[in-house]
Structure formats: C-alpha cells, structure tokens
C-alpha cells in the first residue's frame, strides 16, 4: 500500500493547517495530527478506496470532537493565547480578530467553515466528513459567517478609531 502512505504523507501539511485553525493551539494541533496519523496507519485495512484526504479530515474532525468532549468533562482553563503576540501588532491585528471570532463559533460550524474556506473541500466532501446532508453543511456555513460578521462588526469600530 505504498500509494496509501504517499497520499497520507502528502496530506500532513494540510492537516496541520486545519488542526491549527481548529484548535488555535500549535501543540494541541500537532497532537491531533499525530493521533490522526497513528489511527489512520493502524486502520489502513479499513480504508477501502476513496479519497484518503477526506478520510484523514474525517478522522481528525472526530478526534477533535472527542478532545473537546474530554476537555469539557474536566474543565481545563486554557489561556487565551496572548503568547504569540509580537508579530501580531499593526496590520496583522486582523489575524487576532479572526482567531477570536472563530473561537466564538459552535464546533460544527467552525469545522464546516474551515473545511470550505481554508481546506477548499466541496460542500459534498464536507457533508461526508461531518456525516450530515449537504443542506446541513450549508446552514452551518451560513450561521458561521453571520456569527463571525456580527463579532467583527462589534469589534471593528474600536480598531478603526485607533487608525
């Protein structure tokens, strides 16, 4: 199954990007990717053709859901990341805004939005990853966009005044 391994390997950078945006925490993101890869390699025999990339996104999405559940079970206070601050001043401040805006989304909405706009998956692929009909993906996407816009509109006036 050399082809399988090659496809998995080629997807690692994208998985890291997706995980980073999902968790907004570099270490947690790479842990998630590592667990995804371990799981994928171990269940290689369960993979019967199809798109390896979508399958990996599915595993990662599910693992992240489990992670959030176990975090919810024992409430860990994770700091709001102010630690990657230096390069984020000035025009880059928009990066922090979008990060905070993403944090306000419901998990399923965040997942749908990131898979579409960051990972470039089609609605159909996202529907498969999330295990829901396409209509549900579209409504998650729509709600995510409305929510982010509301969040940013609430924030922006202050930033504009600074400029």
């Amino acid at each position, binding site marked *: 199954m050399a082809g399988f*391994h090659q496809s*998995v*390997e080629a997807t*690692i*950078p*994208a998985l*890291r*990007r997706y995980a*980073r*945006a999902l968790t907004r925490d570099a270490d*947690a993101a*790479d*842990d998630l*990717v*590592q*667990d995804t*890869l*371990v*799981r994928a*390699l*171990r*269940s290689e*025999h*369960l993979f019967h053709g199809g798109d390896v990339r979508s399958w990996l996104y599915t595993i990662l999405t*599910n*693992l992240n*859901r*489990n*992670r959030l*559940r*176990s*975090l919810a*079970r024992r409430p860990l206070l994770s700091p709001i990341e102010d630690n990657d601050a230096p390069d984020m001043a000035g025009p880059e401040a*928009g*990066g922090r*805004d*979008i*990060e905070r*805006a*993403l944090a306000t989304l419901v998990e399923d909405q965040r997942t749908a*939005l*990131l898979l*579409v*706009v*960051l990972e470039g998956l*089609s*609605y159909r692929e996202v529907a498969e990853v999330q295990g829901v009909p396409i209509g549900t993906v*579209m409504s998650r*996407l*729509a709600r995510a*966009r409305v929510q*982010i*816009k509301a969040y*940013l509109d609430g924030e922006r006036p202050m930033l504009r005044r600074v400029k």
Partner: protein
Amino acid sequence: MNNHDAPVTVDELHAYIDGELPADRQSAVSDWLAAHPQDAELVAAWRAQAESIRARYGSVASEPVPERLKLERLLQSGRRGSWTWRIVAAAAAVVAFLIGGGAGWIARGVSATAPSSFEMFTADALDAYKLYVVEVRHPVEVGGDERAHMKQWLSKRVGYPLNVPELQSIGLKLVGGRLLPGPTGEAAAFYMYEGPSGERFTVYCARLHSPQTGLRYRDETHAAAFFWVEDNVAYVVSGPADRDRLKKVTRAVWEQVDGRKS
C-alpha cells in the same frame, strides 16, 4: 433566460463565493449583486472573512513538518504513539457496564482518545488472537488438559498468581495457553478457548502499572476486544466481532479474575 431571472437565494450567495454555484447561475448572481448593494456588501464581508482565515493559518501548511509527525517515524514507532488525552475511568464503570447500561464508556469515540496502554494492549492482543486462532496443530504451548501445570508455569513467568478462567458454563472449552511478550516488555499470559462450532476466544493479560480503568471496546474487521485494568494487570478478551457474544465471554472472565482478590 428563465433561470437567469429567478431570484437569488442566500444559499446561492454562499455557493457563489465558495465556487459551488452551477455555471448557469453565475451571471444571474453577479447581476443581482450589481443591483443589490446590501447583498454585495455581505458577499464582500464573507470573502474578507475567508481571506483573513487563510492569511492567519495558510502558512502553517508551508512550515516544515515536525519530526514527530514524519510518516517513517510513525511507521517505525508502530503502536507506541503518544496520546495526549488520558481518560481515567473508575473500576465501577466495569461493573456498571457489565451489569447493564454503561454504554457511554464503550462508545467507539472514547477509544479514540484512550490512553496508549489501551491501544497497545488491544493491538498486541488482537495480533496474537489473529495469529494463533487460525493455528490448527499448535495454537497453544500447553494444552487445556494440563490446566494446573499451565497455571503454575504461567504464573511463575508473569510474576503474579494467575487465575485461568473456567468458561464451560458458557460453552467454551479451554484449548490451552502460551507465553507472549507483552507490550510493556513484561511477559503476557495468553489463553485460548473454543466454542462448540469452533469459534475461538482469547484472554491476554500482562502487568500494567496503571490506575484501574473502565471497560473499553475495540473492533476491527474480523475481530474485537474488550480491555480493562485491575490490580495493575491489564486484560484483553478477544474474539470474533460479535459484540454481544464477546461481552458475555468478557463478563464470565471478569467475574473469575476479579475473584482472585477474595
């Protein structure tokens, strides 16, 4: 033309920016946006969101892949992946599960974030199950007719008194047992049982210095396993992927190995 004149829906606005809009609606939507500045503003805002997201995270994909995520390395380290989220379950969960209910503990999702010992032990136990269960002539090292000798020998090798479960009551005959290398480097004891139609179940146990856990379930295409830890011994009961039957066998095993304390 008809198609062009149909009013544009919000869904279409999303599809438009996500490249999901059918070709025959493209011009309808762009004309609509030219005539409806509010919608045009909305679309611009959504596009800006997507741009910000890509600007914030897009570069992660160009970073060098950290050593621990390199595929060769993961393939080499095999089943010893690092697991970040450890869930410690109470032994009571085993009881709760076996008595009935408790399904939450064995939801398949839970296994995804379970401690590495769960993964390691069940992987080794299932490997052993699949390897030896098909053996006709030499499935075991010591036959079930030498139960006392087997118990004494294996107990000595694993370093703690073993209890070889008696499963006749549920129709399973002891085929025998063997010694195996355990996942933590300690010896593991492995017993095999056989049912009336030749189906085989195995019990795999080895020392594991770990808190007691709830029962966890893992299944593969043709085999499945239940795992738990008690008194610093990890147990894995493996068998064909028939969960109800396996649960019954697990319960019988659990009742007997648990009995060794009293």
